[in-house]
């Protein structure tokens, strides 16, 4: 008997403002998304982890967030309280990212609020992932909102292979020094997703980041962040069942790959365009290369270039 699992929609867009709005509407129709009634507050969490704009494939395109705002107002009324949120990271301050990546302009034009989650009231929560207990500072705005929309970017990442929906929730942790979680990053990603679950994930695949950025011109949507990452992994050329944080997520019942269904465009079309990491890429061999470099630096006492400092 076929198991009916989560639904993920894949929609193509031409990347203009109007097209993105239409693509979002179509993507939500395809997953039969029905918001709760009486939505009065909405939080939208883009991925702004660097000061590089959306064309680099690193951060969420403000045009996507703009289109989400339009959809919220069309669906829930113009008076809906909308916040765009992000938290400081080790190397990124939200106030600068909002300014540099065009979110201040967007907030002014759309009359929505920008909120730095690192300045929000927090609730401390602990979760156990396997044998490890992890503590998180959770911004209250995410717990109190009527609708939590995650707007991640589709990209590969050196440490954990892929980053999309589950990793975007990791970015909600209030503490700026997220680097403290890096020694057990996979567990931490799953841990935070045990506490916070976006009601809706709308992925920015307009420009995706593989071996290099590429105009994928894609919007992906689902109510299940795990299924989004499962599908995203497949697009990016990875076997999701071999990605460590996906395996931990399954063990912790964060998601179930059984019966995940994609609707809309054919996934192969995006798989074909996505620039996968070549086998010989630096990212694949980063740990080996850094180890060799450290040995070299120790043996020769050569100077370490600032770009390599701390490896």
């Amino acid at each position: 008997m076929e198991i009916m699992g989560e639904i993920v929609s894949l929609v193509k867009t031409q990347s203009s403002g109007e097209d993105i709005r239409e693509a979002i509407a179509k993507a939500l129709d395809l997953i039969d998304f029905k918001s709760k009634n009486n939505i009065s507050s909405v939080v939208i969490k883009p991925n702004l982890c660097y000061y590089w704009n959306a064309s680099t494939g690193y951060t969420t395109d403000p045009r996507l967030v703009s289109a989400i705002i339009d959809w919220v107002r069309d669906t829930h009324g113009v008076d809906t309280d909308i916040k765009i949120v992000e938290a400081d990271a080790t190397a990124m301050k939200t106030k600068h990212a909002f300014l540099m990546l065009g979110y201040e302009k967007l907030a002014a034009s759309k009359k929505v609020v920008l909120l730095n989650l690192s300045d929000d009231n927090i609730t401390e929560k602990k979760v156990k992932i396997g044998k490890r207990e992890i503590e998180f500072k959770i911004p209250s705005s995410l717990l109190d909102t009527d609708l939590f929309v995650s707007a991640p970017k589709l990209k590969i990442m050196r440490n954990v292979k892929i980053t999309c929906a589950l990793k975007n929730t990791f970015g909600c942790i209030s503490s700026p020094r997220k680097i403290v979680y890096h020694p057990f990053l996979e567990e931490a990603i799953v841990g935070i997703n045990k506490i916070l679950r976006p009601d809706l994930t709308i992925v920015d695949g307009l420009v995706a980041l593989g071996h290099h950025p590429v105009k994928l011109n894609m919007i992906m949507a689902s109510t299940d962040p795990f299924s989004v990452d499962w599908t995203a992994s497949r697009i990016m050329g990875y076997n999701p069942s071999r990605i460590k944080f996906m395996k931990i997520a399954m063990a912790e019942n964060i998601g179930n790959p059984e019966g995940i269904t994609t609707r809309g465009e054919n996934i192969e079309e995006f798989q074909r365009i996505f620039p996968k990491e070549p086998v010989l890429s630096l990212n694949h061999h980063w740990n080996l290369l850094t180890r060799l470099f450290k040995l070299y630096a120790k043996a020769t006492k050569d100077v370490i270039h600032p770009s390599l400092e701390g490896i």
Partner: protein
Amino acid sequence: MLNVGVIGLGKMGSLHMMNCLHIEGVELIAAVDQSRKALNKARSTGVTHLYSDYHDLLHRPPPNMDAVIISLPNFLHLESIALALEAGLDVFVEKPMAKTAEECLEIVNLVRKSGRKLMVGHSSRFVDAIQKMKSVLDMGYLGSLETLTLEEIINGPFAHGSIPTPVPEWWFNHEKVGGGVLLDLGYHLIDLFRFFTRGECRVLFASIDHKLNLPIEDSAVAVLQSTDSPTKGIVNVGWYQKSTFPQFNFRVILHGSSGYMSSDQLVPNNVYLHAIKEGAKNLCRRIIGKRIKPLSYTYFATAYYNELQHFVECVMHDLEPSVSPEDGLRTIETIEEAYKTATRTTS
């Protein structure tokens, strides 16, 4: 033996500190930084005098200290240079010499009065490829120099290295940083125009942009005109490009009446193979007890070692550094002219 202190152990200060350890005749005796971690690193290299405030070092420097390397944020250059000169120290200062021409002029006068040496870190002049191009030009192989194209488009200060580290807040403060990409990268390219043309220049056109919505500019194009010859230069700088080490989007093209030469012709075809080859050479040097060539695995960052070595030689042998305080002043004057021209253009 030259006893040296380093003030500021950020990216560039740390680099200078580590380079010092490889320069013959240099003893690194003092280091200043607000970060305890940075001071611990300095201690581990054998530095004995450690300070968290540069005033403490410059008001009462160790009696045997000869020179200081200043690698502080731009807004602290004038004050720290003044204190160092007053303390009787020779000074190597990271570029820009100061954030305004007015401050630079004050420094030029202070240096003259003090009789000490001051060299500004115009590192691009010390890039191997640039040195080779200069000698080819000086030998007349390219004929008369008609036009230069000078480009540097990189991450800028807002991108971190392999390990995420916060961007110092002063970079976001116009008052403290003094300017944007023209002051940061344009500084090097304008200096190179002066270096190749052996003279002064004026600004014919400048256009600056704020793609990152910051109060300081993040991209700029300027056209320079030599005041001593018909040579023109096109300067193109930007902080907007995501680049990954060891890629380095920097090039100079000399267009002469008899030919042209581009720095790209002198860049290794495969930067990774180059790194392996140079690394192996350094290992061999170490094994046979010779001095290594620091940073040669990068093909461009040896310039930081070369410039510091030049400064040390000048101090030890009482020679004038090839980069004078006046070079720092003239470069900033040109940048200020570009800002004025660009303002007129946009208005």
